[in-house]
């Protein structure tokens, strides 16, 4: 017997602070956007060497997380684990919110955002970017249909089929996002097929971490009781995905270390002692991987919500750092056009490029998080997304 009940939440003063924060973030995002459009991108830290900066870190983080967060629904409808069923609607809603947020940041950072219609109507199908436009808009459509199938009782029987399709689409979408970098043959830091599976693993990890934060928010703000089953499953899921990301990260660097042409970049990133070396070892590996790995695998914390919350926070932090390291360090590392020669020019040839992000870039990025949060809040207010209870006895197949 299905005991799950869903509710929409009442608009009350609990939303005051989140709504104010969202409003401030959106207003500053709009201000940054208008300023950059009016004055030009020289106000950002981006330049002709580091052409993608903090906005792209935010955008790609949100986009891959959108794909990963829908995994929670996939576990129920594709892999047949009913314990996750009450979480499926939230998973779909968050996926839509995160994707819209990520895409918004990407569009607002364009040199000519007024030409969005050109990007939507003129395609070069050899470009993975053009493919991604279809993958992202298609994902939104599929997530909406998926939710519709979940909400409408008559269509519940189609949930598995739509879920399977969404699952396949997600894998292709994250592969496409990783391939944006993987297909860049000229840059030593990229040019690796390993980036596609790495991005898939990252999406699953970041999505799960954001989902845990969301569940905790619902638990603490809307009295949704979360039982041991959900808690333990999410904790275990986090553990598996940390290991997956760690595995692909090690493999990515090992394959680079095997190829002599990539040694210089690996030395630059792993050992040379620049900002990226510290971000990689302290931010990504120590704080973003090993510490949460310890926290979610230690018996000492196996029933502690706060530890799980801290772990997921560390993963989100580490995830940002990881994307920063991938995106920025790969561009900052100089191109080796003339192997065997020392190069220099007025255009930064042969030097590690400088990148100091500006406040405008953070404003754009935080705007994306604000949009994702706004979609989530709007969703739970108007439709029955939130499960009434996640107690063990209310879940099927304990």
């Amino acid at each position, binding site marked *: 017997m299905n005991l799950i009940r869903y509710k929409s939440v009442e608009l009350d003063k609990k939303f005051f602070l989140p709504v104010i924060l969202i409003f401030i973030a959106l207003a500053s995002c709009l201000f940054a956007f208008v300023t950059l*459009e009016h*004055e*030009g*991108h*020289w106000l950002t830290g981006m*330049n*002709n*060497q580091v*052409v*993608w900066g903090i906005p792209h870190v935010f955008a790609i983080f949100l986009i891959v997380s959108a794909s990963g967060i829908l995994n929670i629904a996939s576990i129920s409808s594709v892999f047949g684990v009913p314990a996750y069923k009450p979480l499926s609607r939230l998973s779909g809603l968050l996926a839509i919110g995160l994707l819209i947020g990520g895409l918004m940041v990407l569009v607002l950072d*364009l*040199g*000519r*955002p007024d*030409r*969005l219609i*050109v*990007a939507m109507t*003129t*395609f*070069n199908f*050899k*470009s*993975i*970017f*053009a493919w991604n*436009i279809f993958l992202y808009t298609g994902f939104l459509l599929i997530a909406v249909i998926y939710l519709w199938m979940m909400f409408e009782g008559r269509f519940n029987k189609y949930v598995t089929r739509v879920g399977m399709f969404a699952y396949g689409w997600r894998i292709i979408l994250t592969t496409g996002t990783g391939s*944006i970098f993987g*297909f*860049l*043959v*000229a*840059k030593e830091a990229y040019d690796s097929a390993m980036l596609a599976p790495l991005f898939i693993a990252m999406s699953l990890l970041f999505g799960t971490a954001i989902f845990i934060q969301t569940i905790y928010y619902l638990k603490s703000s809307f009295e949704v009781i979360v039982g041991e089953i959900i808690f333990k499953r999410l904790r275990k899921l986090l553990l598996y995905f940390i290991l997956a990301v760690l595995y692909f990260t090690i493999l990515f660097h090992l394959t680079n270390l095997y190829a002599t042409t990539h040694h210089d970049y690996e030395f630059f990133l792993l050992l040379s002692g620049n900002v990226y070396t510290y971000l990689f070892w302290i931010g990504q590996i120590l704080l973003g991987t090993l510490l949460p790995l310890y926290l979610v695998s230690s018996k000492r914390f196996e029933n502690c919500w706060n530890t799980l919350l801290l772990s997921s926070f560390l993963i989100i932090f580490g995830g940002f750092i990881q994307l920063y390291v991938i995106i920025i360090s790969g*561009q900052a590392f100089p*191109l080796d*056009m*003339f192997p*065997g*020669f*020392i*190069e*220099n*020019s*007025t*255009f*930064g*040839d042969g030097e590690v*490029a*400088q990148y100091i992000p500006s406040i405008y870039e953070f404003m754009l990025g935080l705007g994306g998080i604000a949009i994702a949060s706004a979609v989530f809040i709007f969703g739970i207010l108007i439709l029955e997304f939130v499960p009434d209870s996640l107690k063990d006895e209310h879940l099927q197949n304990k």
Partner: protein
Amino acid sequence: MKKYEIKLDRRNFLKKSTMVGLASIAPGVFFQEFAHARPLDEPASDKIRWGMLIDTNQCTEDCDACVTACNDEHGIEDFGRPATDTQWIRKLNLIDEFSGKQHSIPMMCQHCENPPCVDVCPTGASFKRADGIVLVNKHTCIGCRYCMMSCPYKARSFVHENLENQLPHAPRGKGCVESCTLCVHKIDRGDGTTACSEACQKDGHQAILFGDLNDPESEISKQLSKFGGKEIRSDLGLNTAVRYRGI
């Protein structure tokens, strides 16, 4: 009085006006023939492949005539912000790590036969013309900068600033990506050279030779077959139209 009188009967009038008419259209007809300008309604031909051969032995470190000429030709301004300022052509100094020999070379868009920038551009704004010139369509470039990520030569610049008083033959604008056009306006006009090549010749260096790579009788083809020409990052298989000699 009489010597100022003009005798203009019908025969004389027709004769003179025909001569004036012929004299006025003659330069257009003959000079166009001489300069091989391409009529505007005729597409670029794939029988031609424009390219450059750079003799690094002729290029000196203290000379940047090519850079200045390019900037003047296309109205490229310096905003005093080197990291974001546009550079279509730059001087690159190279020191051989093994021998210590120094080279100074101009570096610009290499006008690849298989350009990565064209492959990655989502809207097709980056394109290659039939005669091998790689260009950016300023009407469809959305400013995503993916082409800059993909270029192995760092040949492209993003316009970070507001521009004013652009030149009619060099449409440029904030928020778009741009790079060396191989002076496409000069080629289409029939000048048969580029601003950088012209400036280099004028300075007496003769380091930049422009011409049709497909024409075996062209000077560039003759020099290439005699001395060869190195393709930068030939490992990528891009088949560049700009080749270097002496490195």
